[in-house]
């Protein structure tokens, strides 16, 4: 056919026209070669002078959206994309002078993305000329700030963002070059200003890791109730900066924080109630005292098949108390404290996942029925246990406020934000001797993470 006598010059040219696939493939080959040359010939500053040998391969859910995001957020240039079966298993982006690879996640083949792992432990460092501009651009494109920009002792200005696909990026601007020796000197000088918290001193004496923090309309009435009903002992009572009462009450081996208003000083802020699993020596006597002190009956004392004698009351402030006496060697079961928070989330799994990521919860025990409902779970954070049972019937979610003592409040705050919490208050030194920060999780619970910086 190409040599048919009826063919004219145009058709002859068409027979010799280049294949579109070849035109496109050669272009893509050249772009990849050019990108590699860019790496090889870069000669400025502290950036790599050699072609890069190690390249991150990011797994993401929705690769096309990720390519679009990295283009807008970090000025990435798409070098190539390989599509197969309607998705992108491999694409190459150039950010500045560095290549990154990315591809659609495929957990079933052993390539999970951050979304299916619940986060990424790796942060990719982006060295930029202007960290503030890059941070603003990333945020405008949809990144979430997990660590605001700050000047660091080692001469960099850094901040961290988490992208919509769960990957973490540290934006870095070099402000001052210094030797490693100088970095040690600067760190020592900084620590001289404030001694680093030690494992023993980050938590005040008498406090466990987890302390429930109730805020009610009539704080003195609640203090009076727990004193009369459960043998609580008031350890301190102050007026907080917000004008409300703040009291610490000891119940058995545990502390309880009670804040809020009083009849003569109405509280206009949010109230925080919760449910407790409270272990006492004599459930029946405590139940009687609670009812006499004004509590309403949820359940009269009875022996439970799981080895406890238990009763339920609700105090006048709205808190629920599951009073219990374990029928074992001790009336407080092994591993639990006198006072344990008992949550009723709609679904336990996401809340447990959050506590694990944000606060390093471990030793999780779960008891689910065949229909998948988690009737009882215990989650350990530090030396404390938070119990929960998924909401049903009268047991409905009651967002709770916690005060958590941790070795490093700043780090815990960062982790909580990375785990999806929202900041209420960034870390700050408080007049009462703690450095603390506040976050709110997506389930409505509020967490203050604190490190004692001055023994009280």
């Amino acid at each position, binding site marked *: 056919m190409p040599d048919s006598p009826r063919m004219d010059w145009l058709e002859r040219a*068409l027979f*010799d026209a280049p*294949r579109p696939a070849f035109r496109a493939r*050669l*272009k893509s080959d050249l772009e990849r070669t*050019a990108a590699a040359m*860019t790496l090889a010939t870069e000669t400025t500053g502290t950036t790599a002078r050699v072609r890069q040998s190690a390249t991150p391969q990011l797994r993401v859910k929705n690769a096309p959206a990720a390519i679009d995001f990295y283009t807008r957020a970090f000025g990435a240039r798409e070098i190539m994309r390989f599509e197969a079966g309607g998705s992108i298993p491999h694409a190459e982006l150039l950010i500045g002078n560095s290549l990154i690879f990315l591809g659609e996640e495929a957990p079933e083949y052993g390539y999970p993305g951050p979304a299916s792992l619940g986060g990424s432990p790796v942060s990719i460092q982006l060295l930029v000329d202007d960290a503030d501009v890059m941070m603003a651009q990333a945020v405008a494109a949809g990144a979430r700030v997990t660590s605001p920009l700050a000047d660091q002792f080692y001469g960099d200005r850094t901040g961290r963002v988490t992208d919509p696909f769960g990957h973490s990026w540290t934006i870095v601007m070099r402000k001052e070059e210094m030797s490693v020796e100088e970095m040690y000197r600067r760190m020592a000088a900084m620590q001289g200003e404030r001694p680093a918290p030690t494992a023993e001193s980050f938590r005040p004496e008498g406090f466990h890791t987890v302390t429930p923090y109730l805020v009610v309309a009539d704080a003195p009435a609640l203090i009076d109730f727990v004193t009369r009903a459960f043998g609580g002992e008031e350890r301190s009572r102050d007026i907080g900066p917000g004008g409300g009462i703040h009291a610490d009450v000891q119940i058995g081996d545990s502390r309880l924080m009670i804040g809020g208003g009083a009849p003569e000083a109405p509280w206009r802020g949010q109230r925080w109630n919760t449910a407790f699993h409270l272990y006492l020596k004599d459930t029946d006597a405590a139940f009687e005292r609670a009812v006499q002190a004004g509590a309403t009956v949820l359940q009269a004392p009875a022996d439970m098949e799981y080895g406890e004698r238990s009763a339920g009351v609700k105090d006048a402030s709205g808190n629920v108390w599951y009073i219990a006496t374990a029928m074992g060697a001790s009336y407080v079961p092994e591993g639990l404290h006198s006072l344990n928070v008992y949550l009723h989330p709609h679904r336990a799994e996401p809340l447990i996942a959050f506590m694990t990521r944000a606060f390093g919860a471990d030793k999780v025990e779960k008891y689910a029925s065949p229909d998948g409902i988690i009737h009882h779970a215990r989650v350990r954070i530090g030396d404390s246990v938070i119990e929960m049972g998924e909401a049903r019937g009268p047991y409905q979610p009651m967002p709770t406020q916690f005060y958590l003592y941790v070795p490093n409040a700043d780090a815990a705050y960062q982790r909580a934000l990375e785990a999806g919490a929202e900041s209420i208050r960034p870390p700050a030194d408080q007049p009462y001797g703690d450095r603390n920060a506040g976050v709110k999780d997506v389930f409505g619970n509020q967490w203050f993470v604190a490190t004692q910086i001055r023994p009280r």
Partner: protein
Amino acid sequence: MPDADERLLVEAAQRDPSRFAALYERHFDRVYAYVVHRVRNRDAAEDVTSEVFHKALAGLRRYEWRGAPFGAWLIRIAANVIIDRSKRVAREVVDSDQVPESTTEPDVMLVDQWAHVFRLIETLPADQRTVIVERYIEERSIREVAARLGKSEGAIKQLQFRALHMLRTRMEGADA
């Protein structure tokens, strides 16, 4: 092609190789047209064209602007690649079916005309372009193309007719 424009593109690519793509887009059709006139075989034409652009990219920093257009530099590279290739082929066992490569320089006017046709194909409406690619480049029959695209043979003929008409009109417009 205005030289000032071209010079900016070349200098940009010399500073930043990733800018080479613009030069590639601009010169691909002419280089391919030149090569296909010399080698007369699609696979060989692709090999040579690919080598030309990779050599140009690698040697871009050595290219000096002395009035000789960038396009002419690419054609010189192409001519050298073809010479090296024919020396190599001559030493190998000659395939009797292979069309011998032309040793004479093709007519520049003809190369430009073909390059223009190649560029125009890219500007055709998508359905017409597909038919041109299927019929001429992939060398498929009307019936095959109709089956592949799920259209009637009449529709394919119609699209081919319209595409050829449009290409002819535009080529004549360019000549005028």
